[in-house]
């Protein structure tokens, strides 16, 4: 029981002090779980993190689930995940309920008009950052163009596109392997 509480509380702390998730979380995870508590090693953490990047769901949650599972099995995974999610729920609900009262204030309206412009730049920045590890070779470019086409011309939903792209990626890798052998 003590261990479950420790898992919940230490991930609660990580959730509370991470701004941005994903890569921003890595140094905090290292300090808390590798150095302070010695629950996982550096290389284990890197493994969890990189698998978390390529499995469904938010990377932060995936990493929490891994560490929790390693320490205490399924219940540990649940405790760690709830721990990392709880600060978000509390803070966002608080901010959202306060903000919704002031959404008609002219200053708030102007501020968000400015903010919405920067959000576009931030999204574009995310695309540029993810491009290097995400798009490899002619197949990557082709897949990117095809997805854009399916999205714009065929109006396919994002869920469908991910499924199609996943199957295509798998088939391409199989083809490469067969060609090699």
């Amino acid at each position, binding site marked *: 029981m003590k261990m479950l509480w420790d898992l919940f509380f230490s991930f609660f702390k990580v959730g509370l002090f991470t701004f941005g*998730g994903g890569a921003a979380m890595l140094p905090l995870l290292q300090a808390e779980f590798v150095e302070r508590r010695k629950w996982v090693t550096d290389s284990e953490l890197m493994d969890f993190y990189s*698998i978390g990047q390529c*499995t469904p*769901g938010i990377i932060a949650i995936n990493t929490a689930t891994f560490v929790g599972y390693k320490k205490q099995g399924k219940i540990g995974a649940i405790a760690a*995940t709830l721990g990392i999610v709880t600060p978000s729920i509390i803070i966002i609900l608080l901010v959202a309920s306060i903000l919704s009262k002031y959404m008609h204030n002219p200053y708030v309206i102007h501020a968000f008009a400015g903010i*919405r412009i920067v959000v*576009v730049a931030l999204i574009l920045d995310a695309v540029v950052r993810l491009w290097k590890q*995400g798009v490899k070779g002619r*197949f990557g470019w082709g897949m990117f163009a095809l997805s854009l086409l399916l999205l714009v011309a065929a109006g396919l939903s994002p869920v469908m596109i991910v499924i199609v792209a996943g199957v295509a990626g798998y088939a391409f890798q199989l083809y490469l392997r067969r060609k090699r052998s």
Partner: protein
Amino acid sequence: MIYALLFWEFFKIGLTAIGGGMVTIPFLLDLADKYDWYTKGELMDMIAISESTPGPIGVNMATYAGYNTAGIWGGIVATLGLVLPSLVVIILIAKYLFAKEEGGFLRQALFGIRPAVLALILFAGWELARLSLINWQSVLIAIVSFGLIRWLKWHPIVYICLAAVIGIVFEL
């Protein structure tokens, strides 16, 4: 049953949004098209607030979108829906991983998913840009802030706060 629908929609996002918080944006945009839960403009506010508050962006956005749709319980239900697929998938993978095997299928599927996801985010960015880049001033601000973001690599909060000030001063 709005809660069941919220849970199901965010469960699907948790299952298919591979690669982190920003990847959920196109899926959230899709929900804005499909239901009248929140507008695309409100989605942009949610993105900005999720980047400026503690916690993983993806989780913050799910809580916010759920709250906008159905209040406090909506926020909680949406977040749990987003989290559940991760929990199940990772526990399954963890079993194999700790037995020294690797999830080969996902790794190969990822070869196609990563470029596709980038196309999704780029298109979502385009759709949102059409809403907020409405005159030459806003286009200029977007270009300059993109340059600063790439060049200085400061935390997004800095640019979001600066943009709020610019918005108030120039009455955007």
